[in-house]
């Protein structure tokens, strides 16, 4: 575990890309002094970016773990509940429907805070709808399918909106959907980390319930578990984690689904007391690696982070399936 942290930290430091500062210069810059422009790049661009990567990766991975245990389904991830589609819908309505707001209001809303607000609101509303259904429908599998259905409905609305919008708006929306860890101000990073910490704290209070859920709903109830409250808390934690991250970094695919499975390859226990921090670390590490690749070190191009996580995530899941023939959770 400690080793993982060190690896995580080394990758964090060696995130050299756009310009080329030396490693030792870099470390000294974190402790301030030397060249002004490099100082700016490190402190105001790279540091927030790698911190965002750590939070986004860890948060999405934990959200994935929560969903897989709650639904007792290895295919569950933070986005099966339609969270990302909700966020996409919010952003799509904002960007693609911006002309209807017109003038100053539209200008304000299109500012990055408007995007954050729209995607958070979108995912929250979808979540409320899922929760309302979840209270009526007892079967967790049904909730899973309902989440997927919400996803396709919002996806359809986004398609309709994009059909009627012009090229520039469409491009802006597509750029958002690529996902991005950069362009984070310290203030947005503060808000992101606050939601991350709240989400993680709720998850930690659920550790015992998560373990008992491994036996299945009926056994869990027979051991005195308040199933409704637990379901509520787990979904709440997931939405805070995934909703917050999606709001700031865009929809990032596959981390939530793949990381818990990857972690189970080297962590043999199913105890969430160990699994949860391990998944958190593993997610952070993987995200940092993906981000490093996305930067294409020593070149001026930056690839969309969402494409990189999918390019890596999908083969990982396929590889696990082929090797083990079965996804255990």
């Amino acid at each position, binding site marked *: 575990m400690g080793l993982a942290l060190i690896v995580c930290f080394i990758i964090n430091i060696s995130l050299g890309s756009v310009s080329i500062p030396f490693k030792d210069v870099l470390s000294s810059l974190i402790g301030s002094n030397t060249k002004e422009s490099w100082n700016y790049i490190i402190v105001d661009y790279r540091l927030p970016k790698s911190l965002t990567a750590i939070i986004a990766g860890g948060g999405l991975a934990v959200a994935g773990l929560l969903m897989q*245990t709650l639904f*007792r389904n290895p295919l569950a991830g933070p986005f099966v509940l339609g969270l990302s589609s909700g966020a996409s819908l919010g952003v799509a309505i904002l960007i693609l429907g911006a002309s209807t707001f017109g003038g100053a209001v539209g200008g304000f809303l299109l500012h990055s805070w408007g995007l954050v607000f729209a995607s958070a609101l979108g995912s929250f509303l979808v979540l409320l709808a899922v929760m309302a259904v979840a209270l009526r429908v007892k079967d967790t599998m049904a909730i899973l399918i309902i989440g997927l259905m919400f996803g396709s409905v919002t996806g359809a609305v986004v398609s309709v909106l994009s059909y009627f919008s012009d090229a520039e708006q469409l491009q802006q929306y597509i750029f958002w959907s690529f996902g991005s860890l950069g362009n984070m101000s310290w203030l947005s990073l503060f808000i992101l980390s606050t939601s991350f910490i709240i989400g993680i704290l709720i998850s930690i*209070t659920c*550790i*015992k319930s998560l*373990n*008992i*859920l*491994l*036996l*299945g*709903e*009926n*056994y869990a*109830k*027979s*051991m*005195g*578990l*308040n199933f409704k409250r637990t379901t509520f808390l787990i979904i709440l934690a997931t939405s805070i984690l995934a909703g917050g991250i999606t709001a700031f970094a865009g929809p990032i695919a596959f981390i939530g689904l793949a990381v818990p499975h990857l972690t*189970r390859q080297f962590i*043999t*226990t*199913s*105890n969430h*007391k160990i699994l949860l921090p391990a998944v958190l670390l593993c997610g952070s590490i993987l995200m940092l690696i993906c981000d490093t690749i996305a930067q294409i070190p020593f070149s001026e191009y930056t690839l969309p982070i969402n494409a990189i996580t999918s390019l890596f995530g999908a083969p990982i899941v396929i590889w696990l399936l082929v090797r083990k023939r*079965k996804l*255990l*959770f």
Partner: protein
Amino acid sequence: MNSENKNIVLNTKDLSIGYLKRKSKIVISEQINVSVEEGILVGIVGTNGIGKSTLLRTLGKMQPLLNGDVIFKNKNILDYSPSDLADVMSIVLTEAPASQNLTVLELVSLGRQPYTNWLGTLNEEDKGSILHALQLTDTEKLKNKKCFELSDGQKQRVMIARALAQDTEVILLDEPTTHLDLYHRAYILKLLKKLTQETGKTILYSTHEIDLAIQLSDKMIVMTPENVHYDTPENLIESNCFKSLFPDNMIEFDTTSKSFKVIK
């Protein structure tokens, strides 16, 4: 064997069981009156769909009762909170644990959940109970195996160990002998018998193994479409109760060998 002096653990009064469907009650079985004494093994038999599982689930408060009362240790079952009930009653269901990736030790340890702190940390007492449960069910050697590596017989013993670790006075088991061969069916039922004798627990189980149940159970609940009988196997045989269990054109109960025979 004067069972009158023994304490009654579980008592049902005019109990109706079934399920609710769109606010209308669908009754599967009614007028169930049984008084289960402490420390005995009770087998529940009846044809498919007669309500054996429903009865167990109703007693375990996993399903609402439709009418009448279930009195558990002089207290109505409806007055128990889920966590109070978890301290006195554990269940073994037909369903496999949702996660096949658990090790046996982890799975049995989960039985201590009602007693552990908010993080589920095991103390010495918990560890003692877990070890004891593993020893009683002879699963200690399996403790580092994963669930998907176990045979059906081993799986059943592990699930019983989990219920034992929960350390309750009553254990309910839903068809613990399904998927098992004759040897393992007898093994499991003998294990249950041993547990009632050695630990004083009261164990109720449903089964299709009527022959074995007659040999091993202290009392039996025989469910027929008309009514529900509760007595010792000997008395039930004498009162020709088993003859009414199945339609008599196919199989009949042979009183001397205490088993069913196919009519040729």
